[in-house]
Structure formats: C-alpha cells, structure tokens
C-alpha cells in the first residue's frame, strides 16, 4: 500500500551568520495509511524540523518528501484540509470562543460547514465540551483546552494528523485521558498519525510503530509495540537504550 508520509534521503541544513547547522541528514522513513507512528529522540535530534518539513513550512536542503503523494512545500494547496497538526500547547486564539477556535481552519480554508461529516459543534460534543462552545479559552482548564485543539485539528476531517509534543504539558492523569480519547478518535476515523514526543511511555501507549531518532534525524531504531517486540518492560528498556546510545546531537542543534 502507498505510504502517506514518505521521507527519501531528506537533509535539512540551517545557515546563520556564516555557520551551518545540520538538523537532518539523509533521513528516510515511511508512514502507511491508518498507521500511528511515534518519533522519539533526544532534544535537538531533528524531530521538530521533521514536523515543519511535513507541514511544508520549509523546504528540504536535499532529498524528497511526499505527503499524500504531494510535495508539502511546493504543492501545499493539494494538501489543504487533508493535513492537520496538534501543536505543543493548545495554541487557541484567546479572543475567540471555543466554538470559533474550532471553526478557524474552516474559515481559513474556506470550507463550508454543510460539506463536513461532522460540524464544529458536533466535534465539541465528541470531545466532551458541548456545553462550553461559548466559553473563552482562559475559562477552561489545560486539559479542556487541549481537547479543543484536538477538535480544531480534526474538524476538516484530515487524512494525516501530526502531533508535536501535544500532551507533554498536561499532568499525567489528564494527559492519559486525553491521549486515549485522541487515539480513539483518530483510529476510529482511520487517520494516519505522526506523533513527535519525548516520552517513551507515551509512544509505547499510543503507537503502532516507534521510530527512534539519533543525531541529525538518523533512524537508530524502529519498534512495533503491538507486534511481538517483546514484553512491555523489555521494549521500554530497548527503546530507552536506543535513545540513550544515540550519538548526542551537535551542541548548536540543542541551542547550546
């Protein structure tokens, strides 16, 4: 089956004030339709750069990226509404009501609510916030705000969902509830998910496949938690070792 996200020898170099920082070097991986893939790695291993490249916010220095068969940088119009992202922190517009925040992608992408499988109000109901449509973000708890961010990402019914440390700022109990709800929503909709996280526990709990990034995005390990990669304890240990043993990212990539 054709992969929905494909990296082929992708490199990304940043140049600033005459110095070069290699964020990614010849990175290759694929994500199949409906698959939930987590990328774990140390700070500065190129995870966020990978996400920005998939979002088409920057062009790769070398190699090719395909998202749903299109180059996300040069051919983004073909991906409008088919690719969504849940960011670190909820990133809700504080002056907009909860419902209007969920509507934001529809307004920008000029999608009519009538053409949707589920309206923004129905998405709010799905994430358990039916009664808070008119509330402002500051009136909600952190967990509730992240639920709104999930509804906002899914309202256009995207095929590919990206998550960037999306649950890292929540406390463990709230985070666990929201993670399992998120997993249920994306799995039920047959969506492809690429989730970037620091947390090995989170990756094991959510992913069909875990990719471990070493320095400059070098793939140092690949694990399938649900497909006979040993018991949970051994898997956890093995992923942890891969992350630990990975060559330390260059200091400049870690902002040192």
């Amino acid at each position, binding site marked *: 089956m054709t992969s929905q996200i494909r990296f082929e020898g992708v490199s990304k170099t940043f140049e600033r004030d005459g110095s070069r920082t290699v964020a990614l070097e010849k990175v290759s991986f694929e994500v199949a339709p409906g698959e939930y893939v987590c990328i774990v790695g140390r700070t500065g291993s190129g995870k966020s750069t990978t996400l920005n490249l998939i979002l088409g916010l920057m062009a790769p220095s070398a190699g090719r990226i395909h998202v749903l068969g299109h180059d996300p940088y040069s051919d983004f119009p073909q991906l409008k509404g088919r690719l969504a992202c849940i960011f670190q922190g909820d990133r809700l*517009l504080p002056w907009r009501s909860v419902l209007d925040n969920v509507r934001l992608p529809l*307004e*920008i992408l000029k999608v009519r609510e009538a053409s949707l499988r589920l309206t923004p109000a129905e998405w709010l109901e*799905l*994430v358990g916030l039916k009664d808070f449509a008119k509330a402002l973000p500051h009136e*909600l708890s952190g*967990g509730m705000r992240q639920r709104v961010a999930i509804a906002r990402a899914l309202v256009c019914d995207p095929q590919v969902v990206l998550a960037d440390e999306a649950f890292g700022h929540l406390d463990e109990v*709230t985070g666990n*509830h929201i993670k399992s*709800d998120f997993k249920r929503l994306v799995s039920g909709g047959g969506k492809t998910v690429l989730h970037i996280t620091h947390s090995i526990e989170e990756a094991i709990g959510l992913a069909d496949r875990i990719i471990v990034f070493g320095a400059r995005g070098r793939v140092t390990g690949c694990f399938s938690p649900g497909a006979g990669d040993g018991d949970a304890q051994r898997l956890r240990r093995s992923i942890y070792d891969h992350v630990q043993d990975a060559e330390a990212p260059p200091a400049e990539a870690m902002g040192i």
Partner: protein
Amino acid sequence: MSLTSSPDLTLTRSSRLKIWRVNYEALILFSLLTAGWQIASRYYPPYLFPSLGAIARTTLGILTDAQALETVALTYIRILLALSISFSLALGFGLWAGIHSRIERALLPFTQLLQGVPALCWVIFATLWFKNIETRIAFVILVSAFPSFYYQIREGIRSVPSDLSDMVRALRPTRLQVMRKLTVPSLVPQILTAWQLNLGAATKVTVMAELLSGISGIGYQLRLAQELFRMDRAIAWTLVLIVFVLSTNLVVSALDRRWLRWRNR
C-alpha cells in the same frame, strides 16, 4: 454523544463581583482643597478665587445654554474626528510596516521626528501654513497623535505570539486572513491603550490650538475668560473638559472590559 472520557469540567471563570470601596484619603484631600478655596474666595477678588457657588452657577449655565453646548460639541467633534483620521493612518502604516521591514525602517526616523516636535510648535506651523481654522486644528491633532498610535500598533504587531502565528501559518492563510484572524484582534489591547493616551493628549492640544489660533471652541472660550478676567468661566470650561476626558475614558474602559474579556486570566 461524547466519544471521549469526561473531561474535568471545572470552569475557572473568575467571579465578577465588583467591590466598591470609598477612597476616604482622596475624599479628605479633596474636601480640604475645596474648603481652602472657599476660604480664599472670601479674602481675594473673584478674578483670582471665585466662590464655589459662582463656579457652580457658571458651570450650570454652560451645561444649560444651547450655544455653550454647541461650543463643547464643536471641540469634541474636532478631537474625535482628527483622532480617528490619525488612528486610521497609523493603523494603515503600522500594518504595512508590520508586513514590510523596509517600510518600517523608512517610517521609524520619520515618526521619531514627529514625536520629538512639541505640540506648541505644530500649532505655530499650522497657523502659518493653513488659513482655515479646522484644517489647522485637525493637522495639529493628526501629527501629534500619529506617533503614539503608530508605535502602539507596531509594538502590537511585534508582540503577536509566535506560537499562535505558527499555528495559523500552518493553515496557509492569505495575508488578509492573517490580518483579520490574528494580527488585528491581537492588536486591540494596544489600540485601546493608544486611544486612552491620545484622548487626553489631543484634548490638551486642541484646546491649545483653539486658544492660540482659533475663533471657536472651548479653547477660544478660555481665552475670552482670561481677557475678561472671568476665573469662574475659566474653571467652568476646564471642568467641562475634565468631564469629557473622564467620560470618554469611561467609554474606552467599558470597551476594554467588553472586547478584552479574554485577557481576564
């Protein structure tokens, strides 16, 4: 029906209890000052210290006289109209500068220069340049208020949170959509602050312009009061000005509470 587990539905909405507290300290100081004034009025002529009763009667006379109210309206319309023009220009240039750094670089010394010129100099320039009184006053308010509006808008654009900007950018909005959905709404606090600052400043500038080169308006009435040695009229017109500034500030504060409800964290 919800497909998800029940979220924590505890609202953090702050209570909207308003606590009114009498400021006794200010009340005592104010009472002492007015009592002192009243005592002084018994020993000095009315062109220096008119009695409180005379001031009250003159103020009431202004507020109940159609011609005097026309004078008040004329000054207020001048202030609000010229400020609106100044704000529109500053908003346009501020947004333009927010998009193009070259425009920002070009405008920066120009606005610094405008800010450095005292309002009185603008009054003199306007008197020499323009024959029409309305043009003179509008020009002085426009150039005096422009830098403050422009700086607030420019700072507002700079302070749009980058995480929100990245989130919106990921949806590939047009420039107009970025302005409408992100930039302008996030500018509202700075815009309201600029209006609050400029209303007070523009009132002073307008009255000064009317006083020095006008033939109508509150400033002109103040000049007449000075020429006729009518301190009661000077104070009464000043009170009318204070009422205007305070009431317009109240309107801006009400808009602030309504439009910036989202900032009540």
